[in-house]
């Protein structure tokens, strides 16, 4: 019906008082970038399941594993060798009578140490190299990129193997070898992001205010590359675990009596025909770990991607 004809009271036509309406008000609490991403991550079921799985596996490796078994990973009991999985040894025993349950979790711990150290190297070397290369540009960038290209020409496995031939096998040396072989993707990605960000207006604004390179990097470029860094690290970890497993297969990995998932799988593969359980448990943990990290990384990529933000 026509507005004119509505029956209304004079009260309703009084002007609103000044200041009772704030046209510049922003409704709602401040939503930071991380909170926003977490909300988005929560919607991805695969990622959440992976996250839960990782938490559970970590709990077992560092806390529950050692707690729940009375045996130590290196305790030998020849009388109990090659026991199938049962009440006393949940994952069975190996050729020396060592409890597989304890060994699998130790293996996972060692694999993770290696992976984290390698990832740390990736972070420090890869990010620095890529950021400096991207920011400085010009000839410096050219030289640094040629260096990466040469390094990339050599398969990463070969680099790792060569490094292991030179160094003595041990957790630290393996980590360095894997790290040295795998930092180039991070460097390339960070360089790409820095190149992108360098021309954004907020970076230009900062430059025009007089900011030097250091300030640009720490306040503007790296914070906006953080998402990318996290995702890449999240993928470096399974990659490192896998590389270590390959090194173990060719005998350059962790040496006995220490165990990593890779070396356990290698040992288990030898006895696979008769004692399949020796292979099954470390391989299962290995696969779950790899899968979870990969799915989580995928989920994080969607959650942290600035383009999808509304």
């Amino acid at each position, binding site marked *: 019906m026509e507005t004119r004809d509505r029956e209304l009271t004079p009260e309703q036509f009084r002007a609103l008082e000044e200041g009772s309406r704030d046209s510049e008000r922003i409704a709602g609490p401040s939503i930071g970038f991380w909170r926003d991403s977490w909300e988005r991550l929560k919607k991805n079921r695969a990622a959440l399941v992976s996250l839960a799985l990782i938490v559970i596996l970590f709990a077992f490796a560092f806390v529950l594993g050692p707690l729940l078994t009375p045996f130590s990973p290196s305790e030998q009991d020849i009388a109990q060798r090659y026991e199938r999985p049962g009440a006393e040894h949940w994952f069975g025993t190996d050729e020396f009578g060592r409890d597989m349950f304890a060994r699998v979790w130790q293996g996972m711990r060692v694999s993770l140490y290696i992976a984290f150290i390698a990832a740390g190297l990736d972070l420090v070397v890869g990010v620095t190299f890529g950021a400096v290369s991207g920011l400085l540009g010009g000839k410096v960038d050219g030289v640094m990129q040629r260096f990466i290209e040469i390094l990339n020409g050599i398969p990463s496995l070969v680099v790792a193997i060569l490094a292991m031939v030179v160094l003595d096998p041990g957790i630290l040396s393996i980590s360095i070898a894997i790290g040295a072989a795998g930092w180039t993707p991070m460097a390339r990605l960070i360089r790409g992001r820095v190149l992108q960000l360098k021309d954004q207006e907020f970076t230009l*604004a900062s430059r025009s205010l007089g900011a030097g390179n250091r300030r640009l990097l720490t306040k503007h470029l790296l914070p906006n590359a953080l998402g990318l860094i996290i995702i890449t690290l999240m993928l470096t970890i399974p990659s490192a675990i896998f590389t270590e497993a390959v090194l173990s297969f060719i005998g350059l990995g962790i040496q006995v009596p220490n165990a990593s998932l890779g070396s356990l799988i290698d040992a288990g593969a030898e006895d696979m025909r008769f004692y399949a359980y020796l292979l099954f448990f470390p391989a299962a943990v290995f696969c779950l770990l790899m899968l979870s990290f990969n799915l989580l990384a995928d989920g994080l990529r969607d959650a942290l991607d600035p383009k999808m933000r509304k």
Partner: protein
Amino acid sequence: MTEQTQNGEANGRPLLEIRDLKKYFRVGRENLKAVDGISLEINKGETFGLVGESGCGKSTAGRVLVRLYEPSGGEVLFEGKSIHEATGSEGRALNRKMQMVFQDPQASLNPRMIVSDIIAEGIDIHNLAANGKERLDRVHELLETVGLNPEHANRYPHEFSGGQRQRIGVARALAVDPDFIVADEPVSALDVSIQAQVINLLKKLQRERGLTYLFISHDLSVVKYISDRVGVMYLGVMVEMAPSDELYSNPLHPYTQALLSAVPVPDPDVELERERIVLQGDVPSPVNPPSGCRFRTRCPYATEACGHDEPVWREVSPEHWVAACHCIP
């Protein structure tokens, strides 16, 4: 609307002098001649409007002025001294005196920083605040100056609208107390009703603080409204320059005439009646500008001579300069 101030000019000179400025970019083997020789002066307290379409070089010129680019030729003098030769503390002082407001409200604020850090960046770099409290006070003061609330200081850019973000950008530029501000299309990405907010803010700030502006835009109506003098650029060169009212009422260069004619007027009867000059063809590439007069490929009055006779930049009437060819009396 600001009158020319004779006082305040350092040594009787204009605040900013641009002499035959050139900026080329290398694209593969060739040179992209973004700015190919422009000269102008800006006096203290005035607003100079720089107008042109995409590819004319106006944004590049603006960035050369705030020293984001090194010029390929020519020079820029601020208060009589060359800006590109300044180093060290002189260079830093220039960063404070000449500031820029950017175009894109989305991209001009770091999405990971809160507003107070964004605005205070200049204060941090130049150590203008003695302690945290002083810094915060200054930020609040600046927020209020641009019409926002102090509570906004703890929020992130994405929580604000485009107009509000532009105002934060203005606050950031003001934080270092500049004398000269290059406004590079500051309102082009905003809604019409919001544009007016930001324009009024800029005018108010100019009155209160005696600021000098270079206002870059492709929007002729806005430029006319805010500028004292206007320069029209095409493919890297200036084709006409005159006081605002004079340019719009008496455009001499064919490109200026076409440009003014192309702007649709928000008045139906006027639109119905008026004569339009519609240019044919596209803007040539700045990599290979046409020989002689650059505008000849689209000019309705082009003759053969235009291919080899370069127009002469001269003052046709007081304060009214044109790249003069056979069209200009």
